[in-house]
């Protein structure tokens, strides 16, 4: 008899139920299948009413993140064989409102990303005209921020963060790492502007350094490290302002 594995899927259909439920499905166990394959199998062959997000199937688009047995993971990178013969529970990412089944409302996340002004900011009058070409950067300068630029906005770090789950005002790991990505870019001059958001109470100081955001990150962005480094430089700013109020921040 062909092997099977049980998937327990979080169901929430707002027009039918006021509270979510769990629904079990038996799917063929295939060594090569990832959890996303199993959910797609359910959707195509067993129950077409299931809603979930996915796109690239190769860990690039960041849209198939879900809680798998309570751990936030990309479902396209989580193999069934990692769990077999245990059953697999799939839930929408923690911390976000659920729109339907496995689909979360990510507006909150998108607005946090834009809050940190994630683009290169130049001082007034210091912008290079297009005809003068691009801003040059050495490999060393690129290495400073490259790690933080690898984020795919999958939101796993938010789902892993108990601080965000308890208070969604927290700016959160990916947004702060993205702010750091531009702050550490040699072409950028917008750090002071970003500090208003990043160094605020809902910014880095809300983080208690649980560290799980970095543990679950599929791209090794290390947002926890980015946040701690931002805390350190914000503290240095404070003392510089205190001891040298006439000085100009770098």
């Amino acid at each position: 008899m062909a092997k099977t594995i049980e998937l327990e899927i979080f169901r929430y259909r707002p027009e039918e139920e006021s509270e979510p439920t769990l629904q079990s499905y038996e799917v063929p166990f295939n060594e090569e299948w990832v959890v996303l394959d199993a959910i797609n199998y359910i959707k195509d062959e067993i129950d077409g009413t299931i809603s979930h997000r996915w796109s690239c199937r190769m860990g690039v688009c960041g849209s198939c993140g879900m809680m798998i047995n309570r751990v936030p993971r990309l479902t396209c990178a989580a193999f069934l064989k990692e769990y077999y013969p245990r059953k697999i529970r799939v839930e929408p990412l923690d911390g976000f409102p659920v729109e339907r089944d496995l689909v979360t409302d990510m507006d909150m996340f998108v607005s946090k990303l834009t809050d940190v002004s994630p683009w290169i900011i130049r001082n007034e009058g210091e912008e290079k005209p297009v005809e003068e070409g691009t801003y040059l950067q050495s490999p060393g300068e690129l290495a400073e921020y490259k790690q933080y630029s690898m984020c795919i906005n999958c939101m796993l770090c938010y789902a892993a963060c108990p601080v965000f789950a308890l208070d969604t005002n927290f700016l959160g790991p990916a947004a702060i790492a993205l702010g750091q990505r531009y702050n550490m870019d040699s072409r950028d001059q917008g750090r002071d502007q970003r500090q208003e958001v990043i160094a605020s109470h809902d910014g880095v100081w809300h983080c208690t350094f649980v560290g799980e955001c970095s543990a679950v990150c599929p791209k090794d962005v290390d947002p926890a490290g980015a946040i701690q480094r931002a805390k350190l430089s914000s503290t240095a700013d404070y003392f510089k302002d205190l001891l040298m109020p006439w000085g100009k921040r770098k």
Partner: protein
Amino acid sequence: MSYIRKVPNTWWLQRKPYFLFIVRELTSVAVAGYCGFLLYLMYALSKGPDEYSAAIGLITSPASYTLHMIGLLLVLYHTITWFNVTPKVLVFHLGEEKVPAVIIAGAHYAGWLATSALVAWLLLGTGTSV
């Protein structure tokens, strides 16, 4: 209408990393408590020999040894977990190469060892007894 899931008060019991995080946070109570205790000893010292002897008498009781052993374990856990995450905060480059995490954390352990050796030498090496 979106559904908002409530976070249970037991969230920190649901996964091992969260539990270890809470333990790490709570060990700071032991660190603060011991700082308070050392301040008390200094206060007793300032009050004169009688008061200080009484305080030393308290330390040498079996209950105090037990508390000190528990306190030592908690403070060790606190120190080790924090030293291990220092490379996340302190990032240095030598040329274009990032200084490896093991060197950053190792420097903290080396500093700890050197400070402990100094304290041990001050207390034991100079023949002064507590």
